[in-house]
């Protein structure tokens, strides 16, 4: 597995040539984890989509797993924020997880026994093995999110790009997710997570606070200061134990 997962130099990301987030210099090694933290519209999802090859960079250089963006799609897993088809498609949970293996041995190759083992392990890890043959549309939002996360795990990717992975998860779901991320990192996978959950971000090696630009970048203990959080979210937050306390409201005028 490549030792560097992401290398970005003076990267600018956005839509149709219009910058949404600029000034990104990032290096993520295999087995490392980075959290992108910011409010809605700060550019987190745009950056993730660019890393996934869904959007071309507006400017700057970007390397994914030692190759150009989009070239390493087989080794990248992407979890999007929205799944509008979840309550419509006639698919069982296991069908959704199996999709992760589509391109692993050629785009039209048949599923192998090893694919089935990986799919079963991934569903077990996210505690949805018992829902394998349940139609996706009959599952709750939180259960569906666990299935989507199992799909990500089943890719056995070198780089995981997760947009709001814990959205809708209950406490056992979050615990399963955290255990799965530990497993993925031990395996050598690098993880980039977009979140506005500061507590979740503090479990990562590194945090990028974003608000249309990089507000701060570094280990969570150093980066997540009340001043930086105020600049990122517009409200003051202080970490007290495992909780965050709102301490100050930011006023522009």
């Amino acid at each position, binding site marked *: 597995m490549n030792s560097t997962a992401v290398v970005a130099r003076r990267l600018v990301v956005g839509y149709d040539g219009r910058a949404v987030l600029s000034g990104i210099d990032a290096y993520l090694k295999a087995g490392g984890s980075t959290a992108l933290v910011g409010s809605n519209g700060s550019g987190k999802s745009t950056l993730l989509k660019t890393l996934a090859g869904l959007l071309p960079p507006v400017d700057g250089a970007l390397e994914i797993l030692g190759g150009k963006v989009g070239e390493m*799609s087989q080794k990248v897993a992407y979890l*999007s924020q929205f799944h509008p088809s979840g309550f419509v498609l*006639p698919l069982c949970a296991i069908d959704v997880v199996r*999709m992760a293996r589509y391109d692993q041995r050629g785009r039209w190759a048949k599923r192998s026994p090893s694919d089935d083992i990986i799919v079963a392990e991934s569903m077990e890890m996210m505690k949805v093995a018992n829902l394998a043959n349940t139609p996706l549309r009959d599952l709750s939002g939180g259960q569906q999110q666990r299935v989507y996360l199992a799909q990500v795990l089943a890719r056995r990717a070198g780089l995981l790009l997760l947009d709001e992975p814990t959205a809708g998860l209950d406490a056992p779901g979050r615990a399963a997710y955290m255990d799965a991320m530990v497993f993925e990192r031990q395996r050598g996978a690098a993880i980039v997570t977009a979140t506005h959950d500061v507590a979740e971000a503090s479990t990562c090696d590194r945090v990028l606070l974003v608000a249309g630009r990089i507000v701060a970048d570094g280990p969570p203990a150093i980066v997540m200061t009340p001043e930086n959080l105020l600049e990122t979210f517009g409200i003051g937050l202080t970490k007290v134990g495992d909780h965050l306390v709102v301490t100050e409201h930011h006023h522009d005028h």
Partner: protein
Amino acid sequence: MIDPFLNNGFMQRALVAGILVSLTCAIVGTYVVLRGMAFIGDALAHGVLPGVGMATILGLPTMLGAAVGAVVMIAGVGLITARSKLSNDTAIGLLFIGLLALGVVFVSSSDSLTGDLEAILFGQFLGVDTTDLLVQTLALLAVSAISLFSARPFLLLCFDIDLVSTMGYKAQWYQRLMLFVIAATVVVSFQTVGSLLVFGMLLAPAGVGALLAKRIGSMMMWAVGTGVLSTYLGLLASYHFSWAAGASVVLTAVAIFFLALIFVSIRKSARSASA
């Protein structure tokens, strides 16, 4: 129940044509329903009208005119969305109504077309010949081959378009291919069921499948079964009650959809009560 089909050649050809249309529409309709492309399907079905009208006036094959109409519709939608901030829905709606109006202008300005209008809109189920059946068979084979070859990217398109690209498939390419398959189905099937009613055969059987199936494959099977049953019952009703054949078939398919909806609602209520 089977005598009309045993004793009349035109009923046998109509049954075969209906089954071929049902099979083609079941495959394509499944993607139309799952990908939420009902509006573009409807627009294509109506947008072929000026092409057909123009082809009739010029003495060209009507299928060629329908194909030109479909290409104008697809290219026009692409052009409007690329050159403006307007949504797909607005672009489709504008072209849909524009082409339909153009078709009506053609028809109203030509006395020779007035008699053909009913055939264009409602098809010629009972007038299909061997050539029509051959064309419909080739279309079915082509649609089946494309759908089989593209099964995975088509499923991913329905599930989450971002996944298509992140798994290395060309999302835009497969989107266009899906649109092409829908357009080809409309163009080939309109002669049998008509440009108004082909949309019903795309939606109603696939809708039954979406209500009753747990998986895409079984959804297509339900759609095939519904389409074939609708063809048989519709043609039978048409024969005995002198109803328009295309309308009878589509009406039967829509009736089966509502029966399926009632069945699913009752089953859901029963499950809720027992839980």
